[in-house]
């Protein structure tokens, strides 16, 4: 399997192998063309170098990794949208009748808020890729997490301080030796080279 994953939020086209990938979409190129064509693709290699595309190669002799897609196909979305709209229309009618019967109940603001919540909950999401590893649970691959290095170091420093709290070194011996060294002449020579 020769999977490529679009790691960006934009559509990427690889002209030389005639492939277009939507945001976060993954495809198995082995199902679409010969492996040698995928490996030779200049556009694919360029996108990989720029970090826009990730390549995952899993051959049969290695651990199997399956990739499944949840495709938000347009047809399904349209029918879902129409079902939800019908349901909303019905609910709105009921609410309107209720408001007529009991004017001390829902306010106009409450009503707007409810409708807004329903709309937010039903907005179609972008295409998602779910990686399923054999023998393991599934891992969603649709979120990129980047941690600033300095932040990670600070977090670790605090974590270690917490870990060693209430511990005590009772005794710790090191094998020690003192040796002559040319290290300082190395330092001078290197400093000159690097300046």
């Amino acid at each position, binding site marked *: 399997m020769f999977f490529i994953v679009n790691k960006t939020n934009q559509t990427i086209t690889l002209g030389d192998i005639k492939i277009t990938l939507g945001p976060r979409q993954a495809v198995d190129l082995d199902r679409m063309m010969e492996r040698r064509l995928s490996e030779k693709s200049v556009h694919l290699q360029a996108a990989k170098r720029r970090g826009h595309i990730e390549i995952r190669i899993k051959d049969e002799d290695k651990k199997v990794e399956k990739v499944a897609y949840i495709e938000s196909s347009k047809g399904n979305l349209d029918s879902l949208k129409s079902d939800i709209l019908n349901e909303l229309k019905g609910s709105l009618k009921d609410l309107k009748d209720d408001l007529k019967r009991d004017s001390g109940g829902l306010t106009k603001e409450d009503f707007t808020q409810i409708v807004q919540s329903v709309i937010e909950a039903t907005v179609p999401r972008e295409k998602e890729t779910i990686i399923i590893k054999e023998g393991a649970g599934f891992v969603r691959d649709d979120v990129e997490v980047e941690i600033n290095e300095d932040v990670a170091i*600070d977090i*670790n420093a605090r974590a*270690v301080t917490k870990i*060693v709290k*209430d*511990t005590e070194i009772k*005794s710790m011996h*090191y094998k020690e030796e003192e040796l002559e060294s040319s290290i300082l002449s190395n330092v001078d020579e*290197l400093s000159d080279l*690097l300046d």
Partner: protein
Amino acid sequence: MASRAVGQDCGTMFFQTAENLSDGTIKFKEIRNSFVALEKTEEIEQALSQNNWQYVVDGKNYFIIGEDSMRVSRMFPGKVNLRRPMQSGILNKGEEKKMLVMAKMIESSIGSSPDDKSIVCTCVSSDPVDDAVDNTFHKARLEGMFKRLGWYVKVIEEGHAVILSERPVFTDKDGKEIPYSGIGISLGAGKTNCVLAYRGLPVLGMSCARGGDWIDKKVSDQTDTSISQVTNIKETKLDFNNIDYDNDILFALDAYYSNMLEYVFKNFAKRFSKVKSQFEAPIDIVLAGGTSMPNGFVDKVKKIIGGLELPFEIKEVRRSDDPRNSVVKGCLTQAIISQKRL
């Protein structure tokens, strides 16, 4: 107190530090990077004190660290497990007490930084060619452990440290000598690290998940001998100039050393070809690390690479005069240089 510059190598087998003293000598400290845990009781505390064993105590357990952990695990085989904070060149993800033990080793070996100009330089493996584990998390954890003690931290690649301490020289076409240019290889217990450098700067680095531990495991599997026995024979009897081929363990050690070296050089050659580095004259290779210690190792390397097609010419293959301390010395060199620039 004066500012300090310290080199540190957190190896899979040994934890080492190096510091320059005012008389020009270097002080090395070394401790075996292993431990055992024992439940906290009065009797055990008494035994620990009587034997003058090295240990750390928390609310529930004693953690016996270094050489003493080997002694304790040999005394209670099957009851006490020898544990290691590091595995395959990074913090051992399967060991829940790794951070505690490592933090205590750092605290007891170099202590807190005396001021904001003091620096520690440590090293990590280069990008791996054969496993998916990268160093990002390991590096951040290691840096965090030094930073909490107030140290300014510099991190370099392990193979680069070999270059800085061993000073390979490249002679260009016009006969001009360029120091700190060549290939530095650190053959450790967990990994083998290679760096190609030019004028002291790393050009290309890679690491392989094959080292001394890999050889020991393979030989142990093939000869049905315990890993500790294999390690012992490797450290005391292995001589590549004089292999007793009737001895299964020595024969297997010779075979797996060859296999590992071929694997390392083939992978390095691949990386070298990819970056299209231009070295128009032969390059020096310097070897260091505990796995390079057996007699005849340099000749073995020459023989192996003689049979390979490499994308570069080799001028000389040599081993460091002090292979065990080479990496930590390189880290100290970098620490002193970086301190001058603070």
